[in-house]
């Protein structure tokens, strides 16, 4: 990805015919990709009756913010937003902390049973709430954590994949760095926190970004474990509560855009970091 940043400094090349064709093609494809969102936006600015008019038309004849204000006034969205934030922030914090510790432990320390335990973690890659949702629910039910924040947060905090990614990363960190510190009398923990962690900031950021996006957008597990609408996260609330307004498409679109907006705004500001984070985490599976 370092190459991604490099071309910016190159002098601009002239428009060649092939560049013109490619740019036009890119524009066309981008329009196709963005048109559903534009359609949602325009729908959300129509009145409910105009939204379902046949045949459909792009621009509202009468622009109105009623769908947006109705969504905001209902109060649910603010609740869900807070819940999404609480859950995603907690999950991300715990995952980054716990997975970096474990990744380092597996990569760089010796302890009894390390090999088999690492094998077990690798096997954990195959388990997800989609595969074992029902038993996972009964487990959480036994712990009395149905309809609680912890019930939503903790089961998302044991992603074997993130441990694996950081494990691979720590394996690549030169041992010499640590050993110089050991010779100076530093302990494992100090080495980890003062030398290794600062060095791995980009990888931690990648894991953190990826975890945050997946947690923010996670639907299946919060859907299973929360029933109380007050505790629902944004994707869950939109799907299980807001849909109950039935044919009120303008409001549904407004709510959907509101749910999607935070990450989109964040993306526009931190594009390079997010792209690198997602690519890095994805590629680590190689």
């Amino acid at each position, binding site marked *: *990805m370092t*190459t*991604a940043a490099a071309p910016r400094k190159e002098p601009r090349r002239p428009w060649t015919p092939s*560049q013109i064709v490619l*740019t036009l093609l*890119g524009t066309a494809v*981008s329009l196709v*990709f963005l*048109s*559903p*969102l534009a*359609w949602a936006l325009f729908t959300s600015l129509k009145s409910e009756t105009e939204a379902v008019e046949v045949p*459909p038309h792009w621009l509202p004849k009468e622009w109105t913010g009623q769908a947006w204000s109705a969504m905001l006034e209902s109060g649910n969205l603010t609740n869900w937003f807070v819940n999404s934030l609480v859950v995603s922030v907690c999950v991300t914090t715990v995952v980054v902390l716990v997975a970096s*510790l*474990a990744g380092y*432990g*597996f990569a*760089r*320390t010796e302890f009894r049973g*390390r090999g088999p335990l690492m094998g*077990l973690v690798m096997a*954990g890659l195959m388990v997800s709430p*989609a595969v*074992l*949702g*029902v*038993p*996972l629910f009964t*487990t959480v039910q036994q712990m009395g954590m149905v309809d609680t924040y912890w019930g939503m947060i*903790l089961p998302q*905090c*044991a992603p074997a994949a993130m441990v694996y990614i950081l494990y691979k*990363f720590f394996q690549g960190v*030169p*041992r*010499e760095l*640590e*050993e110089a510190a050991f*010779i100076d009398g530093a*302990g494992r923990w100090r080495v*980890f926190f003062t030398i290794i962690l600062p060095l791995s900031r*980009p990888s931690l950021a*990648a894991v953190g970004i990826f975890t945050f996006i997946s947690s923010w957008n996670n*639907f299946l597990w919060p859907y*299973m474990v929360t029933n109380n609408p007050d505790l629902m996260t*944004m994707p869950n609330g*939109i799907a299980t509560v807001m*849909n109950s307004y039935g044919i009120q498409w303008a409001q*549904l679109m407004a709510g959907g855009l509101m*749910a999607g907006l935070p*990450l*989109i705004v964040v*993306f526009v500001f931190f594009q390079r970091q997010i*792209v690198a984070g997602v*690519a*890095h985490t*994805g*590629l680590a*599976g*190689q």
Partner: protein
Amino acid sequence: MTTTSAETVLRPARATTAAVSTTARRGQGFQHGGWFVAPFLVLFALFVIWPLLRGLWLSFTDANISGDAAHFVGLDNYREALDDPLVWDALGHSAWFTLLVVPCITVLAFLLALLAHHIERGKWLWRLCFFLPFLLPSTVAANLWQWLFNPGTGLVDHLFGIDTAWLTDKSYAMLAVVVCTLWWTAGFSFLLYLAALQGIPAHLYEAARLDGANAWHRTAHLTLPMLRNITGLVVALQILASLQVFDQAVVMQDFGPGPEGSTRTFVQYTLEQGFTSYRVGYASAISIIFFVIIAAVALARMWLLRNREEGGR
């Protein structure tokens, strides 16, 4: 990524201090190693291993949702599952979805990446456009396409001047879910391809250019082979994710099974049995069957990878 740059900068130091390494590591590592992994292992044991074992146990019982004591019923649940036409239907729907999505998304993501890689101006803009849908929650993406496919008022039918009952006709309902999925998730694989394309050393292209290869040849004989690994990864990730499809399918069909049950996926059927029919024991049995299938796919991939590596040597 900067991780690589950090590595390259620091690598030369390695040879000189290698000798000290083993002693220092042993001495310090043994006491603490376990504590580094302990927090993760606790969570992992509670929320991955324990549910797996519990699911296995429940699959031999008639447990219900209330958490009351269950009775051991032996292999009854498994026997019933193999005889249950809906299990096979649901498995078929998930497999059909996977079969449709994986090739489409791989090709689409590759083409998008090729496009974004070769346009010299406004790289951030293309990246933004193609990746943006992936940032939406699955449920929002599904609601959006439900609206786009809505009979009469939907944009899709209107734009193409057709009259297709996307959501209500059993031959199209799954296709609608596929289209939604392509739009929503292609951006992820697109990024992986883009990163891989940018990782191909530029001097290889220069060399090919000097040899007189045209753009088409360069793509076919240089880019494609260089992307073999990443394609394997994309396909594997997509297969595993697609088999577990749930969100889009249920939301587009208002949590129902679709016209004549045609979009009921395996995950959905498991949850229906567990949470709607309250049959936790039976749901656990089909979950275990599903786990075995997923594990088989994952292991097959590992086996393929290893074979290829060995072949490469």
